[in-house]
């Protein structure tokens, strides 16, 4: 029984990963159309995923901040795809948010290269990629708020790759 649930969960995560891989930051027009199609089917698939996660973890999620979970998620240059290594932490946040009715704010940021308004749009795409992931994990959209700051609020002030990689991020903030 448990084995079957885990299998289903793994399948769901794989599906989500495939879905997110389709939403690259700078896709060609054809890629984007395909991603949109997949997204349409993703809406119905997410219920299964949510049920599986709840079954797997029980009803209550632990307080994610007390548990020391990551709340800052980093991105590659000019990309808005989630890195594979951020999914475990996001899954924990999703469990918590499904069980509590708390609000979460996703703040998208970018590095300073390129134009400010384009970076604002790119950082919004990052925040929305995380929001979509949480949504697919069963968190109601009404609990998620996104905002983009672009390159206007850098976490690191330098002008080199070390600083830029810290600035390409989405910060997850509980509003309770």
């Amino acid at each position, binding site marked *: 029984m448990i084995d079957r649930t885990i299998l289903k969960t793994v399948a769901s995560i794989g599906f989500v990963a495939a879905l997110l891989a389709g939403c690259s930051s*700078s*896709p060609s027009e054809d890629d984007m159309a395909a991603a949109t199609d997949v997204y349409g089917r993703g809406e119905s698939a997410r219920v299964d995923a949510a049920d599986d996660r709840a079954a797997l973890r029980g009803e209550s999620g632990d307080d994610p901040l007390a548990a020391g979970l990551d709340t800052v998620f980093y991105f590659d240059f000019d990309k808005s795809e989630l890195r594979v290594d951020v999914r475990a932490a996001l899954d924990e946040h999703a469990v918590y948010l499904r069980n509590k009715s708390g609000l979460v704010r996703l703040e998208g940021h970018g590095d300073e290269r*390129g134009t400010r*308004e384009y970076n604002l749009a790119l950082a919004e795409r990052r925040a929305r990629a995380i929001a979509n992931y949480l949504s697919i994990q069963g968190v109601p959209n009404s609990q998620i708020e996104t905002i983009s700051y672009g390159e206007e609020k850098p976490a690191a002030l330098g002008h080199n790759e070390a600083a830029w990689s810290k600035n390409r991020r989405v910060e997850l903030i509980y509003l309770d």
Partner: protein
Amino acid sequence: MRALWLVLLIGLAWSPVGSAQLTIEITEGQDDPTAIAVVPFEWRGRGALAENIPEIVAGDLQRVGQFSPIDKEDMLGFPSQSSGVFFRDWRAIGAEYVLVGKISQASASDPYVVQYELMDVYRQQRILNKRLRGTGAQLRDIAHQISDDVYEQLTGIRGAFSTRILFVSSQSLGKGKFKYQLKLADSDGARPRTLLDSAEPIMSPTWSPTGREIAYVSFESSRPAIYRHEVATGRREKLTDFPGINGAPAWSPNGRYMAMVLSKDGSPDIYVMDLGTRALTKVAGHYAIDTEPAWMPDGKTLLFTSDRGGRPQVYKANVMGGKVERLTFYGSYNARARYLPERNALVLVHRADDSRSFQIAIQSLETGTMQILSRTELDESPTVAPNGAMLMYATQYKNRGILAAVSVDGSVRFRLPSSSSDVRDPAWSPYLN
């Protein structure tokens, strides 16, 4: 000499910290500039004047590169009117033009009267003779007006010295907190004043076509919103605060519409708002990023940046709808275009295929050729002077955000570093006089 040094040191010690005062450093000029002697103006009134008019005029002319003002020390005399100008003396020191003038005031409560004359040394004739008047606070404006007159007389192009610039300054206060300010200064960086002070970001300042109003994006309510703001009164009005991005406001040439970016429908799209009715029309809506709208002079066409083709490139669309046309093909990144009517060209932020640098470039719309104007790596936000001769942009210098300028032909450059903060997002005003 020692006394002068002391004065300079005191001046430095007392210069206000945190005022974002911009100072000018000329980094490159033309090879064969026109030599002009700007002679100290006569002033017989009481006390020193608040502004040194000939010094401001000489600075203005030097900054645009076509002129090389002659040092005071090299002048054989300081005439204050044309009758005192002996052409042979000025030819001897290489002056091609001589500007002389005098300042008077009938009584302490009267306006200042500035009388000036411009002489052509080779043709041995007077080519300008004007009288301007104003209060003590307007002496700097009078100086820029003289610069405008001289520039137009000698180049045939209207001067843009009396214009202003808007820009954003930011200072890190530590712990992820910043102080953001929207600033207004003369085109030479002098007389900066703060129009808006906020703990949240301020972006994308822009001018109305008359220069009486500005618009910008402010996050002061913890979400981005577009505001319009009357410069003289400080009166402001929030135009939009939809969920998502409210960005990149741009007034139409007739002042009745504002182009903007809203992502309320999921991805950033280009809209035009009728400022009379507040009605919104979507001009470019695509699931890709569409941003950075700029009007063409016809008031019907918008330039914008989109990554609908995979990478950010510049497109144009008619505000009434219809076909969207891609305009840039050379380089992996072309964004935030502005139209340059004097050249029928786009000024934009460009990254070449084989380069890591984001630079300011001009792309001809006739030949498609791309000319790279800036030489640093993180250049952005180009804004063109209303006479099309110079453009200003934001860049990095000594680890700090600064404003820099370059002539449209690439021959002249200067920097306006700020004394205390990172500055960026310059917007050059239209003609204000």
